[in-house]
């Protein structure tokens, strides 16, 4: 307070800064953290079993049920496994693609390639998911392409969910990796070659460490988006049930239970962000 009053000009600047930052900060606390707090708070309420109206009596039944019912554990683990699989698949696909775009393609081609990677983001999520539903169907394109090889497509189910989610979130992984690779000075690669390192050695000891934060940054998107998804799984997941579906099925009837369930992905994502932060990836965002 005293410091603010010391110099008139500084005080004015401070005021302007406060006015500038105030609304977004208020938005962040009220709309974002506030609603999250209310959500988690309502996990401790209960519902009228008939009208499904929320009854505000404090209890921990929902949390207890969440922790003791085996089916919720199964669903949480399945969701986590799918999110991890999607992230790994995206990392595996994004690395060579981004490398080609940033290093192999001529500068003239970089921009068109970047646009090509981004174009799928312009199409609606639902359209893409339904397109995959048609392709993966019993007499769809995937099966008719695979049948000459004596193979059969994955059909609807967990593999289809991983595949479609990996497709949907791939641009979010490619972009940061591409940016990191583009920033990588040519000199370091040349130096590595001059010092006698082969392609693999260079890739492992120079390129990978340089893009690791970018990979983590991309994985924040792929991981958290997969963790919260419940539409794709309804479209191509067959009978697979994820956390999002369990929340959605409870939200109309038992809001407090849905709130308790949604604490699970929140906790998972916070843990993941903490782990990623330790790896220094958030600096690259």
């Amino acid at each position, binding site marked *: *307070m005293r410091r603010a009053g010391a110099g008139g000009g500084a005080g004015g600047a401070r005021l302007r800064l406060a006015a500038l930052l105030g609304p977004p900060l208020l938005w962040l*606390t*009220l709309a974002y953290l*506030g609603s999250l*707090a*209310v959500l988690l*708070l*309502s996990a401790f309420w209960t*519902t009228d*079993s*008939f*009208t*499904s*109206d*929320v009854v*505000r009596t404090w209890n921990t039944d929902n949390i207890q049920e969440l922790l003791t*019912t085996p*089916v919720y554990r*199964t*669903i949480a683990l399945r969701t986590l496994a799918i999110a991890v699989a999607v992230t790994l698949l995206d990392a595996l696909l994004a690395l060579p693609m981004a490398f080609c775009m940033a290093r192999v393609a001529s500068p003239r081609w970089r921009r068109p390639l970047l646009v090509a990677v981004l174009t799928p983001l312009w199409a609606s999520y639902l359209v893409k998911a339904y397109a995959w*539903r*048609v392709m993966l*169907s*019993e*007499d*769809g394109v995937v099966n008719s392409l695979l049948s000459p090889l004596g193979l059969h497509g994955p*059909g*609807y189910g967990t593999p289809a969910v991983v595949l479609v989610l990996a497709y949907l979130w791939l641009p979010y992984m490619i972009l940061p990796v591409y940016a990191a690779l583009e920033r990588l000075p040519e000199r370091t690669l040349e130096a590595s070659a001059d010092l006698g390192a082969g392609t693999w050695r260079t890739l492992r000891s120079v390129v990978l460490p340089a893009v690791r934060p970018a990979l983590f940054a991309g994985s924040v998107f792929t991981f958290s988006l997969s963790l919260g998804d419940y539409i794709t799984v*309804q*479209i191509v*997941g*067959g*009978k697979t*049930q994820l956390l999002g*579906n*369990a929340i959605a*099925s*409870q*939200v*109309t*009837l*038992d809001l407090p239970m849905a709130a308790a369930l949604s604490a699970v992905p929140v906790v998972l994502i916070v843990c993941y962000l903490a782990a990623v932060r330790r790896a220094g990836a958030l600096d690259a965002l």
Partner: protein
Amino acid sequence: MRKRTTSAWRSAAAVCALLLTAAGCGSDDDGKAAHAPGKLGKGEGKVNIIAWAGYAEDGSNDPQADWVHPFEKKTGCKVDTKTAGTSDEMVSLMKTGQYDTVSASGDATLRLIASGDAAPVNTKLVPNYKDIFPALKQQPFNSKDGRMYGIPHGRGANLLMYRTDKVKPAPDSWRAVFDDAAAHNGRVTAYDSPIYIADAALYLMRAKPSLGIKNPYALDKKQLDAAVTLLKKQHKAIGEYWSDYQKEITAFKGGDSVIGTTWQVIANLTQAEKAPVKAVLPKEGATGWSDTWMVSAKAEHPNCAYKWLDWIVSPKVNAQVAEYFGEAPANRKACAETSDPNHCAVFHADDEKYFQRVHFWTTPIKQCLDGRKNTTCTDYAQWTRAWTEVKG
């Protein structure tokens, strides 16, 4: 510095307190004491409808099926339709207060009445109400204390649909999707809602009489467990569950599903897409629905809503909907207006004996609906959790 930290904490605490009070106050202003209007005014130019697929057709699915545009032309009320896939979806949509009227089934009506989201209906303002079949008036699922909470729309059964080229011989029992489901492993489908537990209970009424199930919506703990066990067994053979009717159509068309529960309208649409399917009423009877058009207690366009109520049960339109959806109309004069003169006979419109075999969707509650006094039944919240468990 220290001062700034404390003031930051203080404002954070104030924000939290504000949120708590805001959250705490929200619940008390529910319109529990909703009133039916005494007379109608001019139309508001708009009406927002929640409907089952096929109930508010504007010709976009089938150019022949259009009773929305004539309504708009006649009344000047522009119709905005939201199609819902399950009763739960309808209940939650009605809770938003953004809709004027809903075609609620018996497993939603009582919940909407109890929560005060639906208002009583002044049947005098719906001239066509007088021609509704008496068996549909003043029923436990659409009235309370002798007051109607809506206008009956029609009723029908949930059917068993199968691909005629893949399922042989033709099934005549729900056994095909329960005990014999393994014959079509990975190609069986079921309705994705807790209310589907009643279908298993209905099957168990015949298959396991020792359980003593009298009403598929009145299950004690032991009976619910038996139904859940059966559904878990069925789960192994399920390819996917459906609640979106479009999804079921594509699944049957593509051969991803070959047998499972359906509505007549879905069977019709799938046949229209040239898929070889057939829908039958199995010998055990079936679960079904009896739908009621209800008016929201918070309706912004009540006059247009009442106009819609009267329109949808008027003989001609009620006949059109009933034929399109494949159900028994509620208006007895509709039977003379159907393009197939036998429609009412085929769908047993006034055959009360037939509808005794159809168990209409009802919300399961703690008091056993079959009249048992010595035990408590499982309520819908328990069914919901059981359904999550079935899907695993």
